[in-house]
């Protein structure tokens, strides 16, 4: 088992393609997406029509994790509804993610 970082990004679904492209170009090898609903400081987002949220998770090295979080902060945080954080995870087959 090796220590890596799990990056979790929750954002407006309209940003899905942009974020996926960004994190891949910053070094993420893969990702998992689920569609979620919830409420933040801006508005309740709970239907496809009004816009729902997308949760993107990706397991990456600590270095890539920092790059992704810094990029998101710079590019999206000010304008778009978005939450991003990282957690420590222990993975098997770590070469899969690096």
């Amino acid at each position, binding site marked *: 088992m090796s220590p890596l970082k799990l990056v979790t990004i929750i954002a*407006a679904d309209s940003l899905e393609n942009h974020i996926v492209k960004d994190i891949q170009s910053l070094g993420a090898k893969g990702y998992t997406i689920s569609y979620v609903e919830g409420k933040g400081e801006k*508005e309740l987002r709970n239907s496809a*029509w009004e816009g729902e949220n997308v949760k993107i998770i990706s397991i990456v090295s600590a270095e890539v994790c920092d790059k992704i979080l810094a990029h998101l902060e710079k590019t999206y945080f000010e304008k778009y509804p978005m939450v991003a954080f990282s957690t420590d995870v222990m993975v098997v087959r770590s070469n899969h993610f690096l």
Partner: protein
Amino acid sequence: MDVSSLFVSILSPMVLAFVLGIVAARLKSDLKFPDSLYQSLTIFLLIAIGLKGGYKLSLASFDEFYKPALAAIALCSSIPIWVYFIFKKLGKFDTYNAAALAAHYGSVSAVTFSAALAFHDNLGISYEGFMPSLLAIMEIPAILIALALVRLNAPNAEDKVPMKAVAHELLSGKSTLLLVGFLIIGFASGKTGWEQVSPLFDVPFKGVLTLFLLEAGLVAGRKLSDLKTAGFFLLGFGIIMPILHSILGIYLGKWAGLSLGGATILGILSASASYIAAPAACRIALPQASPSYYLTAALAITFPFNITVGIPLYRSFAQYIFQ
């Protein structure tokens, strides 16, 4: 206004389903459409409108079509400009919100359009079959014009809208792709093609529209509580401007040689506000604009007004103008 046509409009299952949706939302009912159903209904409606419109377009001559098409282009490219300045100067809205509202009111609503077709069919009034092509023409330009207005007026360079990326997203977005794609398919496959698929797309259309309007009612009902923050200016605008736009649309329709039914539908298109393509574009291109203005105005003010009172009202305007 012709009272009997008002009843036809209000007492249709589509409008009543919309009202039920609003009631359900206000009662905080647990009724909720699965997201995939909403997506499926949208896809069905866009394909059905596109296919039938394309087939009917194949029956029309170029001479019949080009003037109405010009009228549609004139409407959708001029409406966003004055809507923007009305919100900016009179309503004191900021650039982003004024532009988002201009995008919504300049673009058109496929569902209001569908309700207008259903209304005309129920009353047995004929209209030009190529009207869906005008719907397709009018969907995108207003959104791009509104974004260009932001580009011209954005306070600083960082806030400039990436027009190229947005244009790509709009054109590849599902509503344009399906509508234009199926207009072409309907046009190319003609009568034989239409007869093969009409059992799925023609007769069930109003039933599917009823389902969609129930969902629209649920969303509009939830948005009603935003009316307080939206304020009187938005409320007044959301009712008065569609009426003025409809009159303009009907006049242009008459000029373009449309029939009474066709001109009424062009009036209804001009009066309608988008709430599928435009909100999706604004969420991505104008995140600074607040959905509690644009979505509330389009969906909780203008849309309910149009499908209940508006459509029969615009019909009576058209009757007057055509006299």
